[in-house]
């Protein structure tokens, strides 16, 4: 990220949103809203005093709600740029008009409560969409007790807890601060389940294995259980990693967990969370008492994927992720020329696959730039001026405003660069004066004749 920011050919716009896109390949106009962060990016030195002095707190989104952050904050330590933002919903100045502690302590005078949102418009030739994914919210699967039991964590929460800069400074601990002696990791939470997402999220098996390795490192005598349907260790070196985890003494139980409960039936279940499952390898129901449960939550399309798809005229596949042009032959392009997709917005994938797809998208864009010219659709429409009666029927129909009226000649005129060749005007022209190249009326009629013999 830092090297992207320092590259002179890249303008990084953080805390900004695309609000409108128009134009076509080679000639897009993109309108971007720059949200006010209430801190002057040019003046701020990133010293962090404001965050120390700010008296107001909120749940830390980056730590999956486990820790706290201030009302003025940088989302995470390595954030680029290292400039904080003020959360209007928490900041006392915005709520009640007083405090301004950050302003008082800021030596650089960077705090600016008067900032407003700004709109910028940029001309671009192509667009790469990499909007990523949302993490599945496990609280909708009520039997797993996420949100109900203190010691049921989502995958992301466990990841933050095990991180040295996380809310517990890397200490694995239960809600009461004690160390867990046994942990169950439940696979496929929200994935491979027709009630939630039918697809496999592709990353959970491997991060679950990584979790057990981390637990083994931090708490060597912990009992670790992995409850899986299948282990999909498909990538380079993944199977080897699985073998290594098996050697580390993790208990692998084949069977999707049915329920997590705190209703003890025996004395040694007392005070524990009990994971109920069917172990399909021994063909028996099991009750596994543990201190901590980690849910390997899956990946899902971002909540706003529908709006994004509309804005960039993308299609979405049945699972809600953006649809590539061709599943095998063109997995980075989309149906809209000049718009490419990479990463989890196209479907769940791990880091190597994301990097590969992103590089491919970048290469496609670069090859267009180095050519300097784009080939536009050959299948466009033209008006036969001899036949056009000047009725103007086509004018309103064109979705792209490609048709104008030549008052002098009293005929319609189609702009070749704007026309995308949908043929709506061809079909509507009462005098048959518009020719849809590659799909002329004669061609289609001949096809009709042909298919009916």
């Amino acid at each position, binding site marked *: 990220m830092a090297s992207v920011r320092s590259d002179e050919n890249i303008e990084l716009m953080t805390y900004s949103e695309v609000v409108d896109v128009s134009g076509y390949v080679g000639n897009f106009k993109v309108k971007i809203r720059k949200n006010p962060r209430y801190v002057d990016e040019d003046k701020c030195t990133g010293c962090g005093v404001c965050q120390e002095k700010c008296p107001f707190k909120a749940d830390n989104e980056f730590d999956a709600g486990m820790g706290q952050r201030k009302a003025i904050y940088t989302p995470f330590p390595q954030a680029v740029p290292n400039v904080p933002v003020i959360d209007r919903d928490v900041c006392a100045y915005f709520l009640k008009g007083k405090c301004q502690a950050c302003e008082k302590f800021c030596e650089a005078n960077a705090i600016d409560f008067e900032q407003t949102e700004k709109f910028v418009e940029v001309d671009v030739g192509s667009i790469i969409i990499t909007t990523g994914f949302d993490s599945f919210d496990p609280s909708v699967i009520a039997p797993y007790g996420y949100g109900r039991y203190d010691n049921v964590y989502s995958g992301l929460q466990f990841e933050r807890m095990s991180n040295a800069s996380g809310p517990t400074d890397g200490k694995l601990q239960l809600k009461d601060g004690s160390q867990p002696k046994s942990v169950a990791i439940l696979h496929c939470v929200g994935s491979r389940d027709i009630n939630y997402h039918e697809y496999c999220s592709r990353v959970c098996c491997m991060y679950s294995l990584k979790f057990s390795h981390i637990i083994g490192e931090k708490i060597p005598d912990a009992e670790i259980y992995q409850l899986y349907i299948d282990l999909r260790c498909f990538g380079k070196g993944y199977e080897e990693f699985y073998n290594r985890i098996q050697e580390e003494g993790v208990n692998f139980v084949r069977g999707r967990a049915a329920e997590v409960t705190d209703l003890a039936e025996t004395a040694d279940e007392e005070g524990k969370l009990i994971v109920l499952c069917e172990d399909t390898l021994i063909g028996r129901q099991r009750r596994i008492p543990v201190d901590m449960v980690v849910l390997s939550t899956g990946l899902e399309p971002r909540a706003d994927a529908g709006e994004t798809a509309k804005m960039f005229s993308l299609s979405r596949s049945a699972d809600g992720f953006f649809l590539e042009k061709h*599943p095998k032959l063109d997995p980075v392009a989309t149906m*809209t020329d000049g718009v490419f997709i990479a990463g989890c917005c196209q479907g769940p994938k791990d880091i190597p696959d994301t990097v590969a797809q992103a590089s491919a998208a970048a290469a496609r864009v670069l090859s267009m730039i180095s050519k300097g010219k784009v080939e536009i659709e050959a299948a466009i429409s033209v008006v036969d001026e001899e036949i056009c009666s000047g009725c103007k029927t086509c004018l309103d*129909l064109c*979705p792209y405003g490609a048709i104008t009226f030549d008052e002098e000649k009293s005929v319609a005129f189609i702009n070749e660069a704007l026309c995308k060749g*949908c*043929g*709506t005007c061809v*079909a509507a022209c009462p005098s048959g004066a518009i020719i849809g190249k590659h799909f002329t009326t004669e061609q289609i009629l001949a096809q009709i004749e042909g*298919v*009916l013999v």
Partner: protein
Amino acid sequence: MNFEPKIVGFFCNWCSYAGADLAGTSRKKYAPNVRIIRVMCSGRVNESLILKAFAAGADGVLVCGCHPGDCHYLKGNLSARRRVAGLKPLLEAVGIGNDRLRLEWISASEGPKVPETVKSFTSEIKQLGPSPLNGRHNGS
């Protein structure tokens, strides 16, 4: 004689044609009765193409486009919807019958919907019998 209807399908390049492609790549079978003609958008289909298909001996015409709001060209499918709706009373009046013309929205991801639609429309046309304009089957 077993009646095998001939149906002309106008499929939009971006959704239904891609959906049919997907049905193909996922090895789904469907009845050979629908013969697909690719158009860039269902908005390209007008009354004259549909009538021509009937005149040339089609027993049914299936127009498939993107779901409303999903048209690759924003609103071509709305034109198609208007035209199909306007043409149906005419088909009824001239004795062809409005059931022989059907409009369906199939998106590129709805591979399974293509065989389903083809199957249900084919069996519907089978029930209706040959088109009155179709000389091949009624011996005239």
